[in-house]
């Protein structure tokens, strides 16, 4: 089922949760709504489900207007962050619930219900816990049961609100893979909310990046990671070093230091933010030349094939809240530069992504 979200706005008191959001989500894809907490992603998901009503705008599901329909009438499956399994029912009864509450005329008979529930429990690989109660299951198992329960009513779209948010790191990773596999088997249109970029980029076909009630960027995980459209997208996805300053000819003035921006046609005095990924940032000796931001090595982390060097900006204006940089280089380079904690160096990058600091638009 395709989902069309048009001009949706929602405020809670003085807080604007969603500000004129328009989205078109094609059928059969697994879509991630990604953003920091408070960006409106859960509110948007709940509005799509019909658990919340928008102040203005419309929702179209499979080409039919669903704006004024209740959650019962929308045929969506909803999976909650904290599972919301019915505690007084066995796992079997939880999954069967959606079938048992159907109007008498549509309600399948007991044999059909039993067969269907057991098939769903097989699908989530938990047929052996059918007679247990939710309190006897682990978090990961509960979430899989919650998913089976949502699938029992054959929803046209599956909505998951931070489905792995309450689980520990290892189980998260397992369930993530498992959700992807499940989606590849069932091809049911799915939207899940997450604040974990790794989760979104790893699992989803398409990522909707949100910030402060509006959509920043929509694209494939590759596009989101490699072609961030906005300043926010660049800073939110992946690790990044930010250099904020003014244009001075071919350089960016950051505090007392200069950083070559490598771009033409930039008006002097423009406020810009330059972003560089840790692997696109280099370390130069302090007295190698004029180019680069002076920083002090704080820690060197050498676990893994690539070493990470954490540095602190030395600019005077930032003493109260130190600004950190991160650089990924090979252990050989660390040795040849003679890096150690406390050493002062310069940071430069040949791949600086520039954004206008006032309009947030991409310059280069």
């Amino acid at each position, binding site marked *: 089922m395709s989902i069309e979200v048009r001009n949706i706005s929602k405020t809670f008191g003085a807080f604007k949760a969603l500000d004129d959001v328009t989205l078109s989500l094609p059928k059969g894809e697994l879509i991630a709504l990604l953003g920091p907490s408070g960006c409106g992603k859960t509110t948007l998901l709940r509005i799509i489900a019909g*658990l919340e009503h928008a102040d203005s705008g419309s929702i179209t599901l499979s080409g039919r207007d669903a704006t004024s329909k209740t*959650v*019962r009438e929308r045929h969506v499956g909803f999976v909650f962050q904290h599972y919301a399994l019915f505690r*007084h029912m066995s796992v079997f009864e939880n999954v069967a619930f959606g079938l048992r509450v159907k109007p008498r005329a549509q309600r399948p008979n007991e044999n059909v219900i039993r067969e269907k529930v057991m098939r769903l429990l097989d699908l989530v690989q938990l047929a052996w816990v059918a007679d247990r*109660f939710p309190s006897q299951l682990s978090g990961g198992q509960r979430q899989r049961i919650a998913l089976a329960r*949502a699938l029992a009513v054959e929803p046209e779209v599956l909505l998951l609100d931070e489905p792995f948010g309450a689980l520990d790191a290892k189980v998260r990773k397992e369930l993530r893979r498992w959700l992807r596999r499940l989606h590849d088997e069932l091809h049911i249109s799915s939207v899940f909310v997450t604040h974990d970029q790794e989760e979104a980029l790893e699992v989803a076909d398409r990522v909707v990046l949100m910030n402060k009630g509006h959509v920043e960027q929509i694209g494939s995980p590759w596009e989101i990671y490699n072609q961030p459209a906005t300043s926010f997208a660049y800073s939110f996805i992946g690790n990044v070093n930010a250099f904020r300053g003014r244009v001075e000819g071919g350089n960016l003035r950051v505090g007392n230091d200069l950083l070559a921006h490598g771009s033409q046609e930039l008006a002097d005095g423009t406020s810009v933010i330059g972003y560089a990924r840790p692997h696109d940032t280099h370390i130069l000796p302090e007295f190698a030349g004029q180019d680069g931001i002076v920083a002090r090595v704080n820690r060197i982390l050498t676990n893994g094939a690539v070493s990470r060097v954490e540095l602190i900006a030395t600019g005077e204006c930032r003493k109260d809240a130190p600004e950190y940089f991160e650089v990924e280089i090979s252990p050989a380079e660390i040795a040849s530069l003679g890096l150690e904690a406390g050493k002062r160096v310069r940071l430069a990058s040949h791949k600086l992504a520039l954004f206008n600091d006032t309009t947030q638009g991409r310059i280069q």
Partner: protein
Amino acid sequence: MMSHVRATRVLPGFGLSLGFTLAYLSLIVLIPLSAVFFKTAGMSFDQFIDAIGSERVVASYKLSFGASLLAASINAVFGLILAWGLVRYTFPGKKIVDALIDLPFALPTAVAGISLTALYAKNGWLGQYLDPLGIKIAFGPPGVLVALIFIGLPFIVRTVQPILEDLDAEFEEAAASLGANRWQTVTRIVLPTLLPALMTGFALAFARAVGEYGSVIFIAGNIPLVSEITPLMIITKLEQYDYQGATAIASVMLVVSFTLLLIINLLQAYTAKRQGRTL
């Protein structure tokens, strides 16, 4: 040689606290109650049967336990509705209504009895309209029921309220998203979750009603075989200096009340266990 490892507990003081609990319970509850049985034990079997089995006393058992069960049931229904209203909705004066709930706890029961009698008597504010319709509340079994409902209400509201407050809207949302209508959501999801708390409240309201004396005495009319409650029978025996007769009836009340409360508690433990909660 086998080494003997003494079991150690993380929380110290088990012996002390168990000892204190038992000693305190004995002092406050068990010793006074056992006196009832000791006193009764002085009677012959025939005297005992006479005392507890006389027509008036049997009629009073029926009224006391019957009216208490009925009052607790009525309170379970309406107390639940009250708790629901107080938890789920905001309205002006909600805090005041919330405070009013506790009033039957605090009011001297005689005051409650007198004001209820004044209300429901033939010439009372409510009685004057009910009497022409042939409905007599005061000075009869219905009066007993009204008084017992009055004193039992807070028990239900106060036990159900916190559970209802903790009941996440998520469960109801989940049920709705699975296609359940409002009625199905309430009967299949909300009520079963509230059931253990409701049973606790029911047990408390029932226990209080069985032992209630002050408020009932004024409104009951105390007509032999019709509207005499068991506690009144005990008082009557005491006034006739028949202490053994009084304790005999008291021991019957104790045994029946204890049995009923035990059944309710066991039922409650069973439902709680089914919901995977520890008591």
